[in-house]
């Protein structure tokens, strides 16, 4: 099938300070007026590459995810694909009408009504008045703004504003759709509606480029992904691999940071015991940093007690970016462990079937005496565990099932 989007060694440079930006801007503009073609390959002092040497090709109906930490050039790349920024090096070829959901609602005027803004915004996105007339009902219906259609948009809630912007953008019938994290803004209902609409657009044969921090979204919505770091492409290939690589890199960086953190002595905690370390083991007792969901996981906690600790309480907590997902705590499960004597020891927590969904977890470990809230020592977010997708499974969980068929 035909290539609809081709990026060839695309690069973009920016300057660090405003005064340099103004100076270079004036210089560049003057140079292009006088016909001198500036050598855009070179960096001047204070400039850096926001995107460097990115190449890929997309065919009809394909989708590409772009991942990477903040400031890695994802949005800049997307803006270049949309023609807002011209690349300084390389070239981008596009075949078809491009639609950007980079910042929906840009160009809305707060004093104008929703109805008026639909026409203005539609025209900005390249729709003719006839197009807009024809799709007007569908746009209003999808945006679900109801009686607010004839109110100025400054009276809209932020959700309504985004909904209207999104609705206009998707109804401009793009062949190539560029999406930048916008779908995370609306409420759940609307997000779902957006994904359905995206699916519909894709089934119609449109090509999608998607920037997201949400690995589920990338995994589910795009076959391939481009992983950027410091503007450079690190990996381009199947989404699953790109995500694992990104997470691995991220963890290495975090591990370095948390090691530094762990080295700091804890303040204000009575040291009757100290946690020395923690390991994750699989069913064959091999230390691992990642495990498939649904498999057996052992957590091994090493500690040293400096006195006798009656009825010790251990808790091992699993967090994601969204907060606590699971806390294993012997006190809450009414399990009384034998008292600790001075000296070193080891606790083994076994989770026979790890029912945590696929994600990256930050693990905290605490030790307390009797009352779980009074901890003697703790290590917050000091460890990381990657829960991977179960082989031959769809979705982010693996649950044990029983099936019965009655005919």
């Amino acid at each position: 099938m035909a290539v609809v989007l081709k990026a060839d060694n695309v690069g973009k440079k920016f300057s660090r300070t405003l005064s340099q930006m103004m100076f270079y801007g004036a210089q560049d503009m003057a140079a292009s007026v006088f016909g001198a073609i500036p050598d855009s390959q070179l960096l001047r002092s204070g400039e850096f590459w926001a995107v460097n040497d990115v190449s890929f090709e997309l065919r009809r109906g394909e989708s590409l995810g772009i991942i990477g930490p903040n400031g890695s050039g994802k949005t800049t790349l997307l803006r270049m694909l949309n023609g807002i920024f011209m690349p300084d090096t390389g070239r981008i070829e596009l075949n078809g009408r491009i639609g950007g959901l980079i910042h929906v609602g840009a160009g809305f005027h707060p004093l104008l009504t929703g109805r008026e803004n639909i026409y203005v915004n539609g025209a900005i996105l390249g729709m003719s008045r006839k197009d807009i007339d024809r799709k007007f009902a569908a746009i209003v219906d999808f945006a679900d703004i109801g009686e607010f259609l004839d109110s100025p948009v400054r009276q809209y809630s932020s959700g309504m504003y985004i909904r209207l912007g999104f609705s206009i953008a998707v109804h401009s019938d793009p062949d190539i759709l560029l999406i930048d994290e916008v779908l995370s803004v609306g409420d759940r209902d609307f997000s779902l509606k957006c994904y359905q609409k995206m699916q519909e657009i894709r089934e119609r044969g449109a090509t999608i480029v998607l920037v997201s921090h949400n690995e589920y979204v990338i995994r589910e919505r795009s076959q391939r992904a481009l992983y950027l770091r410091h503007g450079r492409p690190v990996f381009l290939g199947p989404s699953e691999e790109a995500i694992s690589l990104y997470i691995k890199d991220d963890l290495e960086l975090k591990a370095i940071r948390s090691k530094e953190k762990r080295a700091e002595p804890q303040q204000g905690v009575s040291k009757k015991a100290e946690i020395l370390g923690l390991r994750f083991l699989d069913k064959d007792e091999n230390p691992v940093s990642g495990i498939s969901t649904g498999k057996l996981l052992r957590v091994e906690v090493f500690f040293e007690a400096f006195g006798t600790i009656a009825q010790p309480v251990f808790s091992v907590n699993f967090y994601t970016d969204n907060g606590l997902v699971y806390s294993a705590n012997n006190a809450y499960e009414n399990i009384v462990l034998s008292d600790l004597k001075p000296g070193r020891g080891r606790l083994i927590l076994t989770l026979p079937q790890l029912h945590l969904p696929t994600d990256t977890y930050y693990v905290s470990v605490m030790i307390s005496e009797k009352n779980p809230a009074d901890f003697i020592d703790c290590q917050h977010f000091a460890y990381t565990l990657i829960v991977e997708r179960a082989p031959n499974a769809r979705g982010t969980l693996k649950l044990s099932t029983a099936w019965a068929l009655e005919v």
Partner: protein
Amino acid sequence: MEIYEANKYSKLGIKVWPLMVGELWGARELVWQLFIRNFSVRYKQSLLGFAWAIVLPLMAIGTFVLLKKAGIVDIGSTEAPYPVFALIGLSVFQLFSSGLTVGCGALVKAGDMIAKVNFPREVLVLAAAASVVFDFLVKLVLIVCVCGAFHFMPSIGSVFFLFAVIPIILLTLGLMFFFSLANAIFRDVAQIVSIGGTFLMLLTPVLYPVPDRGLFFFRLNPLTALVEGPRDLFISGRISDPSGFFVAAVLSVIIFLTGWRVFHMVEAKIPERL
């Protein structure tokens, strides 16, 4: 197929012109929508609405009529009643001065939109210019009323009046292209333009006829011919300095084409500089 690369337009040479015309033609609907938008936003929270277009000329002319009556300034004799004469001059000149003022803001005010959506940026300048032309048309109604009040019958040549203002509109557009860009980089430009506009009005025979002394100096200023030409047509039916008007008109066309070309060449660099 759309291609994005560095210095895309610089490489095209003369072939860029049909491309520019095509782009603009494709965006005509957008110019219209933005004009309507600017128009309705401007008067959304105002009582007088577009009557504001005639407030400033009325006040300026009232002041000059007063100064003239009091003998403070000697304006000399004009072929038409002074208010008619001054109003036409001011209306034509304001095409230029208001044009430059809104031109400076055309890109800067749309910063958010420019940074986030891709569309031909010329439309912002054109939509701004359209609002100035609209104001001019409102003032024409005022001119007709004032003519009636002073029992002045415009000459038969005034049917060409609207054609005769095209050069000053082109000159303004050309300079708007330059100043909108310059102001996007250095915000000082808007200040300079607003101060410069006032001085230029006093240095151009807008509220007074071309004096006999210092004629050479006035003829150097292309605005003299561009303001005088349409006014002569309206009042007496013939342009008093046809060659001067012709030269100024050619100059205007050149400035318009240069401004447009320069704008088109560097517009791709605007979003990152705003």
